[in-house]
């Protein structure tokens, strides 16, 4: 069975933003931006990943720190692009 969108995004965030030996727990509802794991500048990598992975273009008005603040929020955003 193909990996769910939720798990793909979660795995990406863990690989992309946690350093080796960083044992902070990141789950579906962990606040990654307001929680200080990802800063607003580094967030651009996540946008690039989602756009490349799902072949979509996320306008800046939708790519907000709030929309990207957790895996669950990102999944909600992706639903707007019919990605589930």
């Amino acid at each position: 069975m193909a990996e769910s969108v939720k798990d793909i995004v979660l795995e990406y965030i863990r690989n992309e933003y946690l350093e080796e030996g960083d044992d902070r727990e990141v789950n579906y509802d962990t606040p990654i931006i307001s929680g200080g794991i990802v800063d607003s500048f580094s967030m651009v990598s996540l946008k690039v990943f989602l756009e490349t992975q799902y072949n979509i273009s996320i306008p800046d008005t939708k790519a907000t720190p709030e929309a990207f603040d957790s895996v669950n929020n990102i999944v909600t955003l992706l639903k707007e692009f019919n990605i589930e």
Partner: protein
Amino acid sequence: MAYSDEIRTVFANVIADIRTQGLFKEERAICAPQGADIEVEFPIGSAKKKVINMCANNYLGLSSHPDVVEAARKGLDHRGYGMSSVRFICGTQDIHKELEEKLTEFLGTEDTILFPSCFDANAGVFEAVLTEEDIMIADRLVHASIVDGMRLAKAQQDTYKHSDMKHLEQKLQLHQDKRIRLIITDGSFSMDGDLAKLDQIVALAEKYNAMVFIDESHTSGFIGKTGRGTHEHFGVLGKIDIITTTLGKALGGASGGCVSGRKEIVEMCRQKGRPYLFSNTVAPVVVEGALKVLDLISKSTERRDKLEQNTIFWRKGLTEGGLIIKDGETPIVPVMLFNAKLSQDFSKDLYDEGIYAVGFFFPVVPKGQARIRTQLSAAHDMHHLEKALAAFLKVGKKYNILHKTKQEIIDMYGM
């Protein structure tokens, strides 16, 4: 009145929030020229106190050097106080062209364009040079001015983990479909004092057909055998496509910055760089001072060598005394305290001991990484450093953090 009580309250509440979060920044009035020994009013209006400055970007001690001051004075006499113009209308003097040529020679590039500051250089260069077909791939710890410059540009953006070459390589592979790939990094990272791995970055750039941008604000004048910068240190002179740097730190400390690099890129900044086109020219007095600085440091490496010796002494003294510092070789030496309040208290106690060094904490540095950033200068003599070291160890002892591990300090004071 448009500025109503309601509007005033909106702003007052924002400021109150900043205070509540412990993030309110206060200026200290220095009642002396910049140097190792300064007189400070802190808080402003209180009695003046003589302290040793351990937090200036005055790396080469040239900010108040008599030869630089004299050159600036002559500049004032010969070329006046201001130009009342941007560069391309009637704001370019012979000395501006001369300084651009001298910077080109010093940095080992093809051409240079002056900007009012390095912040402006970074804010303007990406927008002037890149388009939406291009990608900017930046180290995650680059300076705020680069972040702002990237946001102003139309080019696409991506980032890589700080100094993680494997991650950078993945990003270069990912973006092979773009017209231009530009790797963006600071030469020396101002909060941690570490150097970019520029030899490896250049090798990756060659492998994946990318250009390289470095901000040399915290290296120009003293990193590398003759102080040319990070590219000299790593043996990649001539291989960097875009260098930005400042005249506001080691190179006299007044103001002004530049973009230096491939001649077509510099020309595009001259034609399209908005902070260049729409901001006043660098004042003649600053230009003359900077010319003298370049003359002094091109003739002798004495000041850069003294700074290196000071840095070795300071790093060794702090480490052997039992404080935790960030490893590195630059004159930016962060003393790690981890807890924000501890960094503020430590700084205040240092001030009482006659040492001026400021605490940095979130959001300037990540949570749990509060520190006091110390910066060495060629203006420091051994007696300054010995006194400062004694003060750091005295205050460290007071807080019982000498020869303690990071975890032990966090256990005592929290993150």
